[in-house]
Each structure stands twice: as structure tokens, then as C-alpha cells.
């Protein structure tokens, strides 16, 4: 295991207590340097916002898959406090 990143706080907001749990897998985990992070979100936020926050402003690679609460979705999906948001490369099981 690579380890957990520090909690990432939205720099311009006051602490509203709203966070999501972010997870990275496989090659993306290695690129990010951590298994995931706890990320603070605003009242209205999408998976893309969470990615930007967690990645420190990197662009979301085009082939990265997005899951919210273990269901596939896309980066425009709204997220709410307590959600689990995962980012990972194309799957290669079987």
C-alpha cells in the first residue's frame, strides 16, 4: 500500500465540515503517490471538482474512470458530503 494523502482543504472556503473520501487505484494511485485523500467540498460540487482538489489542480486524464459510491458515473456527477469518489484507469481483470 502506498498510503493515504493528507486531508485536502479548500483554500478559499472556511471549514464547512463537508468532505468526501477520494480513492485512487492501480497506475493512477502510483502517479498520485497515495491511495486516496479526504477532500473538503463546497455546498455544490461535482466529481470533477473533487478531482481538481485531490490532484492539486491537474487535468483529469481522458481515460480515467469515475465512480461515486462504487457506481460508475462521469465527472459531472454531483457529490455530497460523505460520498466515496474513486478515480482509476481502464479495468483489466479476467
Amino acid at each position, binding site marked *: 500500500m502506498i498510503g493515504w494523502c493528507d486531508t485536502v482543504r479548500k483554500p478559499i472556503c472556511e471549514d464547512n465540515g463537508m468532505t468526501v473520501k477520494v*480513492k485512487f*487505484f*492501480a*497506475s493512477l494511485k502510483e502517479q498520485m503517490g497515495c491511495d486516496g485523500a479526504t477532500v473538503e467540498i463546497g455546498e455544490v460540487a461535482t466529481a470533477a471538482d473533487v478531482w481538481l482538489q485531490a490532484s492539486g489542480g491537474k487535468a483529469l486524464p481522458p481515460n480515467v474512470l469515475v*465512480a461515486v459510491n*462504487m*457506481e*460508475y458515473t462521469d465527472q459531472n456527477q454531483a457529490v455530497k458530503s460523505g460520498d466515496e469518489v*474513486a478515480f*482509476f*484507469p*481502464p*479495468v*483489466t*481483470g*479476467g
Partner: protein
Amino acid sequence: MKIAVDTAPFSPWEALGEYEREVVQPSFPGKYGAAATFVGTMRDFNDGDAVQGMTLEHYPGMTEKQLELIVAEAFEKWSLLDALLLHRVGALKPQEPIVLVAVWSAHRKDAFEACRFLMEALKSRAPFWKKEQLDTGHRWVEKNTEGY
């Protein structure tokens, strides 16, 4: 119906015999005329390179959830009696089984089609990732070979 994701090695043919004897036969005695199965085994080569070993990563929770969705879809699409789906995770060596998909039905068309559907859906939707150990280091498998 059984779905399992495990780091422990499994013997596909023994698992099939045991599951049919202990679950399918008592549940559907005389009703299943067809069983279609697929077993994926680790090769010692991929994409032209020798492979020494492999690590299979997954997303605990989501992997099982997606596998359950896929199996439920198959039961909606075809007339099936039972299904068994085993997938290995963790460190593997060549010749070790990776995946087992099996379906039982009254007639062969349902079994054949559902088995292939399950395998293709698993490969495109279940969050597993393969990292290969080559002579020259490691590499992540970036995409699956074509299934159709």
C-alpha cells in the same frame, strides 16, 4: 449463485464439481441440461513479452458490487438456473487460474450466451487491474485483448 474475490489460489475444476454437487444439483435436480464455463489462466507471455508474475489489484466493495450487477443482468437477459464466479486477486504466478465463470441452465443457448456475456462484462466493468512483472521491471496492463 456465488461470487467470490479472493487472494487464495483456487482449483477451477474442483470448485465446479463441488459447486454443482453441493448447490446446483440439490437446488435444481434434473432441471439443468447445460453448463457453460470459462476459466482464465495466467500465461507466461503477454504482448510479445515473457511475464514472470502478476499482481491483481481490485477495489474492495465496488468489485463485488459490479460483479453482482453483471450476474443480475445475465439472469434478466437469459433463462438461467445458477451461476458461479470466482476471481483471484493479489500475487499470481503463470499457470495459476485467474477467473472462473460458470452458468447452469435448462438449454444450451442460454448457458453459452450468458457465460460469454459475463466474461466480457467482467473484463470491461469489474474494477480489477493487472500489473505484470517482466524481466525488465513492472508494467500495468493498459487494455484487454478483444473478446469479439
